[in-house]
């Protein structure tokens, strides 16, 4: 994805602060049928930060419920507040005083190959305060893996003021940017690396399979890149895959750490690709996106393969099971 140059003003961190935006925790529910009655039940959510607002990733958990992404859809309740909506309008804002700014939710899932939007609220310059409350239903059996969920601002109505600022968008439907954005992971508690278990007569205990054509667009998923564990191998038992595998298997953690170091080093050896990673020139959920996430979240050394491998494994040593899932395993 090439960086888009916009000829109009968009939402910046600075503007978000001026808006006095507060975001309440999102709530998730699903519909369950009990005795011919449909009941709405809460879904427990895990996040990759200590609080929801510090997180980029919310994972729908099967804890305390029989929520099953294979069978159930899910619902999201959101509540945001803008206490200084005036900051959006006028000379320093993104739209002129007479225009209307719309709030919508926008979601997209590369793995599910779909995206959609839904209007939620409107803001005009006279507003003292904007309450954004919404409820959105995701139908069952339509989505897989994960989706990006955003609360966006767009131009709902343009009012010509005669002398308009050139940097104010005029086309209705133009997207100004996001008030909030995060990933909702549906299947499992979020994965760090795709792992596939399959029997083989020739292979070693594990291999890193790379089938991608372009890491900037190809998704970070098993069909493009995965650790393939050979269940026929004599040392397979040492992995403890069946015993709640990820948290207890030291050997598996070593494998994942090595695989991560390998893919990072592989991409680094292509200067064009590495440049794309550093300039955020890649598609969401792509392999480059994953490497970028690693770079942003951890401070590993990339000078040489040995140093990189050491940094990754050191990091993994500090992940002692429980909070961070290392991978979703497919058999």
């Amino acid at each position, binding site marked *: 994805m090439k960086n888009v140059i916009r000829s109009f003003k968009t939402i910046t961190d600075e503007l978000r602060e001026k808006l006095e935006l507060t975001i309440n925790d999102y709530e998730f529910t699903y519909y369950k049928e009990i005795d011919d009655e449909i009941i709405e039940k809460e879904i427990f959510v895990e996040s990759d930060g200590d609080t929801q607002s510090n997180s980029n990733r919310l994972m729908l958990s099967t804890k305390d419920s029989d929520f099953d992404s294979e069978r159930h859809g899910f619902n999201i309740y959101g509540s945001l507040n803008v206490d200084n909506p005036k900051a959006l309008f006028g000379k320093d804002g993104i739209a002129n005083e007479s225009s209307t700014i719309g709030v919508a939710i926008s979601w997209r899932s590369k793995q599910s190959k779909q995206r959609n939007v839904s209007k939620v609220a409107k803001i005009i310059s006279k507003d003292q305060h904007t309450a954004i409350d919404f409820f959105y239903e995701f139908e069952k059996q339509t989505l897989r893996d994960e989706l990006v969920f955003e609360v966006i601002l767009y131009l709902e109505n343009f009012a010509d003021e005669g002398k308009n600022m050139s940097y104010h968008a005029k*086309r209705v439907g133009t997207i100004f940017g996001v008030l909030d954005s995060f990933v909702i992971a549906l299947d499992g508690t979020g994965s760090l690396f795709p792992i596939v278990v399959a029997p083989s007569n020739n292979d070693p205990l594990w291999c890193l399979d790379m089938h991608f054509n372009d890491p900037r667009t190809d998704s970070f998923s098993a069909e493009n890149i995965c650790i393939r564990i050979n269940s026929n191998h004599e040392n397979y038992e040492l992995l403890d895959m069946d015993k709640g595998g990820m948290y207890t298997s030291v050997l598996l953690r070593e494998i994942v750490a090595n695989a991560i170091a390998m893919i990072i080093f592989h991409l680094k050896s292509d200067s064009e690709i590495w440049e794309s990673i550093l300039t955020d020139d890649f598609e969401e959920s792509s392999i480059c996106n994953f490497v970028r996430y690693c770079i942003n979240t951890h401070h590993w050394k990339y000078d040489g393969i040995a140093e990189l491998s050491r940094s990754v494994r050191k990091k993994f040593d500090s992940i002692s099971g429980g909070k961070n899932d290392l991978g979703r395993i497919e058999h």
Partner: protein
Amino acid sequence: MIWEELSINQCIEIVESWNNQPYSQTDGEYEMLKRELSREYGNLIDKGYKGYGLDLKFGIYLYELLNSKYKFDLRKASNDGLWRHMAVKVIPGLICERYGGVKHDHLYKKAVRIWPKTLWWYIYLSWQGDSKSTYEVLKNNTTDEILNLVERPGQSGYRIDLSRKIMKKYYSLSIDEKKRNRNIFRKVVKLNNALTMTLEPALFSGGLDGYVDYLFNLVLKESRAIK
């Protein structure tokens, strides 16, 4: 129905084992599915369908059969492993016949080119409410339209309602208009992908209908100007 998946590696092994003589490996409900698809394919060939005409007729049959009888759904349709299994284990013979040989891209190698998957998504993205209307809207197209619609999803997924309206609008262009501007559909898709970087069609003036009119006007105006 227990749906099975194949990884790319597994497909490579299976296709290699054919020694250029593809054969299916099915049991249970998959055996039934194979028979139904093979029978329909055979019928269409006997009636003289080939190329795009065959793709369209077979595609609509596959779409309706999978969805109604086999309880297929969108979540499964985005699972490439599932399509690879269908291509390589259930109907490899049909695919090789359609493409005149063992073509890896259409069997498993290129995610957007696995034949049954391409057909299902082409129909789904063009669906007009029922198979008859859908057939009507798509009957004048070619394999180019399939390629441009399915292989150019743009950023992070298809906008399904938009895609269906684009197909309907495209159908409404006169045959002359389309012929005169050979690559009009490709231009529409490409322009749409460019516009949606900063603009959301459903939020446009007049909603999706307003956007589709706007999109086509831009493409047609440019094409006329060139002439």
